[in-house]
Every structure is written in structure tokens, then in C-alpha cells.
């Protein structure tokens, strides 16, 4: 997917960009409102991440003009302010959601998915592999045209694996992506989800291979 990140703090912007790129997204970065307009006029983005306090003005003015220009690209506001009234005015101005800094990257991803699901519907991010059709945004998995319902964590696990078939994922890497930082569980908890996903994928041409001591890998025939 293609993101536009409007954020003036270069350090934070770099961190977000590198993380997004790691996940396989394309990110353009603007550090002021003027640039943000230029980017949003020319580029076709799936989603805009917008900071509020920018050097050449308030992110809200961007939002206003963005909405006035009949653009319906969803916008998620990144705010460092915690005042509730501020958040409300943000939603009134046409933001689709907001995240308070500092944010959990997984939460940001979850919110992006939720907003995209609401806004643009399904079918744009479909991945086909053998007899499997997977849409991570819609959260749907079909094997041989039979819909299979997955829980959120199973979906996210499948998304990770399916984006890089053949690559070995160490246990802790999958763990970091699935569990939040305040969950006090051991890394072995990931095995439960691997087990469940394996069961769901039984009728498909996809297989999850365990490499003892190394991690897991998705293979397909």
C-alpha cells in the first residue's frame, strides 16, 4: 500500500518510514504542509498519516483543504496532544481516526486496516497463492472458494508469513508482531497460533514448516 506521512520530526518520521517499508508498504514523507499538498495532489495514496503541529501551520488546515478538495483519501491524525476536545475537533474536520503519540506501531497498523476497510472496501490488497485468496485489509481468507474465518492474530500471522514465502521467521520476530508489550507471556505462546493456522491451512496448497531452533517458514506447492 502507498502511504503519505506528514511529520516534521525527522527522527520519528524515519522510524515510521523504515518500519512501514519493512512491512512492505511504500511511504512518501513530507515535513511541512506545503510539501504535503504537493504530494497529495500528484500521488495516489491509500492513506495519509498527518501530524498536527507542523512548522508552517496547523495540520487541521491541511485536513480542511484536503476535504474541501473532494479528496476522499482516508486520513489518520498523529497527535501529541492529549486533550479530548482536540481529538473531537479532529474528527469533526474529517479525520478518520487518530493515534496519540507515542503509539504502538501494531496499533497504528490495526487502525489503518480498520479505516481502509471502512473507506475503500475490499479487494484492493488481495493476495493469490495457489488455491488461496487472502485479503489482509478485509481480513478474509478463502481456500478453493470456501471462506475460512480467522481470528485477528491468526490473520496477522498469516499476513506476515504470506508476504515473504520461503523466508524463515524466528519465533521472537513473530512474537513481537503479535503480542503487545504489556502481555506477560513467554515466546512459546506463538506455537498455539502456528498450530491453529496450520489447521486452517490444511486444505490449501500452503504449508507452515517448523525449522527447529530457527523458526517458521511458509512454503507452497
Amino acid at each position, binding site marked *: 500500500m502507498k502511504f503519505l506521512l506528514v511529520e516534521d520530526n525527522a527522527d520519528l518520521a524515519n*522510524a515510521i518510514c523504515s518500519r512501514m517499508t519493512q512491512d512492505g508498504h511504500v511511504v512518501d514523507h513530507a515535513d511541512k504542509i506545503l510539501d504535503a499538498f504537493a504530494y497529495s495532489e500528484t500521488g495516489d495514496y491509500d492513506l495519509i498519516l498527518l501530524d498536527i*503541529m507542523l512548522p508552517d501551520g496547523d495540520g487541521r488546515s491541511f485536513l480542511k483543504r484536503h476535504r474541501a478538495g473532494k479528496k476522499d483519501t482516508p486520513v489518520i491524525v498523529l497527535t501529541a496532544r492529549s*486533550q*479530548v476536545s482536540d481529538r*473531537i475537533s479532529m474528527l469533526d474536520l474529517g479525520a478518520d481516526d487518530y493515534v496519540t503519540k507515542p503509539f504502538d*506501531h501494531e496499533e497504528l497498523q490495526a487502525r489503518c486496516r480498520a479505516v481502509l476497510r471502512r473507506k475503500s472496501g475490499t479487494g484492493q490488497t488481495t493476495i493469490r497463492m495457489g488455491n488461496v485468496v487472502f485479503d489482509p485489509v478485509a481480513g478474509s481468507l478463502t481456500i478453493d472458494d470456501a471462506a475460512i474465518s480467522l*481470528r485477528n492474530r491468526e490473520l496477522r500471522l498469516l499476513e506476515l508469513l504470506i508476504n515473504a514465502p520461503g523466508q524463515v521467521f524466528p519465533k521472537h520476530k513473530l512474537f513481537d508482531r503479535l503480542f503487545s508489550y504489556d502481555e506477560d507471556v513467554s515466546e512459546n505462546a506463538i506455537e498455539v497460533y502456528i498450530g491453529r493456522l496450520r489447521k486452517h491451512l490444511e486444505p490449501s496448497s500452503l504449508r507452515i514448516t517448523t525449522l527447529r531452533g530457527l523458526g517458521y517458514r511458509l512454503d507452497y506447492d
Partner: protein
Amino acid sequence: MTEAVNVSGSLRRRMTLTLIGGAAVLAVVLYAVVRLYAAQIAQQGQDSILAASVTSILDAAILRDGTVEVDFPYAALSMLSTASDDRVFYAIHKNETLLSGYEHLSPPDGTSHTSGTYLAETPDGALIRVATDSRTLVGADTRSVITVSVAQTQEALQVTLNGISRNVALFGAGFFCLSALLSFWASASTITPIRRLTSSIARRGPQDLSPVASPVPSEMVSLVASLNRLMGRLDKALAQSEDFIAEAAHRVRTPLATVRSHAEAMLHRVDQDENRKALRSMVRAIDESSRAAGQLLDHAMITFRTDHLERKELDLTELLQELVLRLTPVADMKDITLHVESKEPVLVSADAILLQNAIRNLIDNALKYSPVESDVMIHVSARPLPTLEIRDQGAGFPQDQIAHLSSRFSRGDNAKGIIGSGLGLTIAQEVAEAHGGALKLSNLPGGGACVTFSL
């Protein structure tokens, strides 16, 4: 917000009492002066008749062959007759010996020539007015001083005077009543601009700190000017503190966000268990401090707002559904399902921002303490009170601490390892209480916590 104001009397009452008191004094003075004046005039009338009577008797006195003859004119006494049957006395003395008449009307002692009027008393105690005059009659070889006294009791005079007094008293009372009415009206109309100013300020919304623009009487100008200056300062101070809070939050959170993002990215690159542990606890510490900062600022804002609730009609169910929509992505991450049970719109008059914050804190709590792949039930009902009940399938509250959990910075023993500031329940409770409601914590029979938030 009704705070105790030190009240000292009432301007209106003070003014009314002063005006009525003044009117009473004036009425009494009027009564006294008119009565005194009337008494003087009445007395003058009696005196001049008495004097005329005396003169006519004196005129009738002649000296013939050394003896005094008085051809007593009938008119001299008949002119004194009154409706009240006043008694009339006379006495004629020649050189201090009584020739004729009432013996007790002794002439004024000493001088041979006396004339004038005075008050005296008869032996039976009646008050009489006496007029006396004397004349020297010169005969061939004698000089006789004839003194004539005529007296009259004062009953008719008293009756007249009483009549006048009664009328004057009635007039005074009427004057007093009219003045009292006027003073009520005057104080009411004087107080009107103050009342108008008061109600125009009392009607204002909590955020309205604009200066008073409506015209006021000149005496109130300096008061209103000071009030306007005070509100201006308050407005500025509030705006500054709001900006300050926003700026402070921005300054604290932005670097924290940078650190967190880097720590997270680093965590994905390192493989060593030791480093990973350190990075994970670093991220947790960042979350802890940013959450605490956020809750503290929220709490400050809520404390400020609970003093000035901006109530408006809203649907609790609608507000809840919006919140649930916002929180669903977070719940999904732990595969927790948020269920909203509501049959009808629940209309309440409440401060939307406060309500939103309180309920978000409660649902946040339920999500944090719920196990993965569980359900959180939120039940809204309108009767008997607008109530929101949140039930989770977590461990529940520690039974022995349940009473203290909503006090500031207090966290249950089972909260170890879960990121929180200990302010969430405090905020919810303060919001409920500001709306006249309550927050109740309990444990479900089958396990799990139940929070009841009523308005």
C-alpha cells in the same frame, strides 16, 4: 457552582429602610409643627376675644362721686360663649380690692398697671386662660386703678385643637404611606441594573469570558470595568494554561514517540535474548510514562471541566457506539470482542467530552485486564437511571481493595505488568459524581469485573 458568599445586609433593604425612616421622621416633624402652629393660632383667637371682653368692661367703668360704677355690658360675656359650654369668669378690682366677680381671679400682684394674658388654674383644677387689663380712672380728688380680668376654660379650644391634630395625624400617616410606597419603587428601580447585570453574567456559558457589553449606569461603570478586566485576565490565563498543557504534552510525547519507534525498530533487528528483554522493558517504560502524562493532563482538564459542566442533550448509546468503533482495532489485537447491548436510545443531559473520556477509560481498563479471545459486554439502560455496565472475563478486582481502587494513583495488586497510571477509575468516578451519578465496582459470580457507571 454556588459558593458561600459573605453576605452583609441587602442594598435594596437598606435603601428602602433609609427612605421609609426618613419619611417617618418627616411625618412626625410635620405633625408636631402643624399642631404647634395650630395651637398658637387658636390661642391667639381666644386671647383676642378675652382682650376685647376686658376692654369693653373697662370702657363701661366710670368714676362717679368717688365710686366706681360699671354698667356691665352683656355683650362682654356673650361674645365668649362657645359650643362646648366653657365656663367664663370675671373679676373687677379697684386698687387690688375685689369689687365684683370671682374671687380667685386675683390680679397679678405688684404693679398697678397690668395687662396681658396668662394661664391659671381654678381651685377645682380646671385650666383657664385669663386676660387682664387695667385703667386708671381720675376723679376730682381720687385716682382709682380699675383692673378687669376675664377668664375662660379651654374646652372649646381643646376640642378644636384635637380636631386639627387628628386631621394632621391622618395627613401625616397618608404622607408616610405614600412615601413608603415610593421608596419601595425607588429602591426596586435602582436595583434593576444590578439585577440585569447579574442575570446576564449568570446566564453565560462556562467558556464565555467576553467583557460585559450592555450599557450600565455610571455608578456601576468602575465595577463593571474591573469585572471586565478580571475576566480578560482569567480568559488569558485559561488560554495560556490550555496552550501550555498542549505544548507540554507535545514536548513530552514527541521525543517519547521517537524513542519508542527506534526501540521498536531495534527490537526487530536484534536476536539476543538479553538485548530484546532490555528493549521490551524500555518500550514498556515509555508507554508507562506517556500514559501517565496523558492521564495527568486529562485529569487536570477534567477537574477544570467538572466545575463548569457544559451539559447538552445526547444519546448515551450513540456515544458508546462511536467509542466502541474507535476501540475495536485495539480490542481486535487481543481478539477481544466488544458487545454493546442496548434496546433504545438513552437520552441524557451531560458533558459529552467528559462522558467520552470517562467511558473510554473504563473500556480501556476492561480491554487491558481481559484475557485474549474473550468478550467484553457493555450494557446500556435508561431505567431507573441512565446506566452503563461493563463486564469482562478477566480476573476481577481484588476483593479486599475494591473500595479504594477509584482513589487517585491506586492500582490493584493484580495490575502488575499491565501498563496504567491508576487514574482511569478516578477520572470515571469524578465524571460520574460531577453529573450526580456514581461509579460502582464489583466482581461477577462467575469471575470477571463489573463496573457500573450511572448518571
